[in-house]
């Protein structure tokens, strides 16, 4: 572990944030002049003029780009067309709902996914292993919305136990959380299992067995710490998965979070809100990846040597 490694990772993260911002700017400008879509075709020339002056569309593209970046840094990405207030505020007001969903799902996924994966790896090639893997493959190959719909069919339509959508009471949490947990746990279990199996067939495990350590000691002291490294590395990838899952899940169950807001804004072409959400999500992903990289460096002493400087 050394500072050059961390600095390089931080610089790369900053570069990626800049690329995302530029991408959003480019796609915004490439998609045409927003004047028409906001004001309509019958707008008076004066109104068009005023609109263009207000949003700086009459300035050269380089100035627009510079303004865009400096405004983005200030967090000012224009108002939401649909809600009238600042797009950032519109997004922030939905954020707690999404966060609570994600926190509950993440904790459950950790417990369920890792234990299932561990169980499957320790009972490798037995019926237990195969049963868990069949479920995991099924969960893995099912789009989130199919899982959600099937759960609604079972718990809302057939059994009538739970509401099929909305928010407010604790009962509304169950189906969205269950949907996401099922899908994410499948990914996690599969990954944990293969990471563990990789480790369990290493020579040092056999050495430990030969030394006379008990099986549980071996798993706890040798296998788990080494298997945890690849598990940590998928965290970055996994946060993307859970965000995409949240977009779908919130849409199925009418959950008032940023995922549903994103879909709604895309449908109604509320550009500014889409921009804020895209940047928000990518920044949090880049940040998570950065943390994972640094954590990875601490967990695996080889990394900073291999990837960094000698």
């Amino acid at each position, binding site marked *: 572990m050394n500072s050059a490694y961390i600095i390089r990772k931080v610089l790369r993260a900053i570069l990626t944030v800049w*690329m995302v911002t530029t991408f959003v700017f480019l796609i915004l400008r490439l998609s045409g002049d927003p004047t028409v879509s906001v004001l309509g075709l019958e707008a008076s020339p004066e109104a068009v003029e005023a609109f263009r002056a207000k949003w700086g569309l009459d300035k050269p593209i380089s100035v627009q780009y510079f303004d865009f970046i400096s405004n983005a840094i200030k967090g000012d990405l224009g108002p939401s067309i649909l809600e009238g207030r600042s797009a950032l505020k519109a997004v922030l007001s939905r954020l707690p709902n999404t966060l609570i969903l994600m926190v509950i799902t993440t904790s459950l996924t950790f417990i369920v996914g890792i234990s299932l994966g561990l169980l499957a790896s320790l009972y490798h090639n037995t019926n237990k292993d195969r049963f868990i893997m069949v479920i995991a493959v099924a969960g893995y190959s099912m789009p989130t919305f199919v899982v959600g719909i099937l759960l609604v069919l079972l718990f809302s339509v057939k059994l009538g136990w739970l509401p099929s959508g909305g928010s407010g009471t604790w009962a509304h949490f169950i189906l969205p959380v269950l949907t996401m947990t099922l899908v994410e746990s499948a990914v996690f279990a599969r990954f944990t299992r293969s990471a563990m199996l990789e480790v369990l067939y290493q020579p040092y495990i056999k050495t430990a067995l030969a030394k006379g350590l008990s099986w549980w000691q071996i798993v706890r002291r040798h296998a788990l710490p080494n298997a945890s490294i690849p598990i940590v590395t998928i965290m970055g990838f996994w946060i993307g998965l859970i965000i995409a899952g949240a*977009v779908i899940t919130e*849409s199925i169950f009418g959950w008032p979070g940023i995922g549903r807001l994103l879909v709604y804004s895309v449908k109604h072409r509320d550009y500014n809100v*889409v921009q804020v959400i895209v940047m928000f999500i990518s920044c949090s992903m880049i940040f998570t990846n950065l943390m994972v990289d640094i954590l990875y460096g601490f967990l695996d002493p080889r990394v900073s040597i291999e990837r960094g400087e000698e």
Partner: protein
Amino acid sequence: MYNNKTNGNRIMVTQKRIQGNTLLVLFAAIWIVAMLIIGTLAPVIAPYDYQQINLNSRLIPPVWMEGGDSSYFFGTDDLGRDILSRLFYSIRLSLLVAILGTVICAVLGTTLGFIASHFRGVVDDFIMMLVDFQASLPFMILALAVIAFFENSMILFIGIMGIYGWERYARFARGLALSAEEQGYAVAVRTFGASPVRIYLRHILPNVGNTLLVNMTMNFPKVIMMETSLSFLGLGIQPPNTSLGNMVGFGRDYILAAWWMAIIPAITIFVTTLSMSIVGDWVRDKLDPALK
């Protein structure tokens, strides 16, 4: 855990597992072939025009339920359209989009990977920067952003599906080409004065083709999942066209009154993607055991 008894068991178990898996793979393959046939023949075998609205026969349940009508096997939807016919056409369009997307993506990603490996230096750095960028943003968010800013159309949608997963192909192709270039045979044909196109298409591609093919079969169910998910959100294939995803999406609103509208296409999607994963895993084990 590692004593002789369980080791013996493990060998037996492995044999049994292979037999069990072969059966599973067979079923999966049959299902995929059936889907392909249905997709190809949809206009011939569909009993009704999938767009034909009949308000007198709305929300008829499937034939095996009470109130079912034998002329509508899977029942009808909220506008009285025959669900079986819509299902056939949806399979057709979903598969078409997924196949086109997969092919575009494989060609695009592989080409970019080869370009990166051939030119190295700045070109390589730039392409790898794009790969990193792509990997740092969930594809669904990117797709939603593009759809938000541009008018949604079939061509745009296929284009979007055509970049889903390109970075994986690019990374694979680049890595494989870099190591193939180190191999004598690529250097050898270069010393004869062969053009880069010849070196890459005639010599390197066939040698790395298996890995790319495996990647393609593994990617295919993901493309279907992405396509149906976007269509489910109402941001993919638009009416009057029909896809498996948007059938589920429209059926969602009637889930309490007419669950079959959503569940029948949902199960079709599930079995199809599951079959593709199973076949994909099998192809991987056959062609490229090293890739796991």
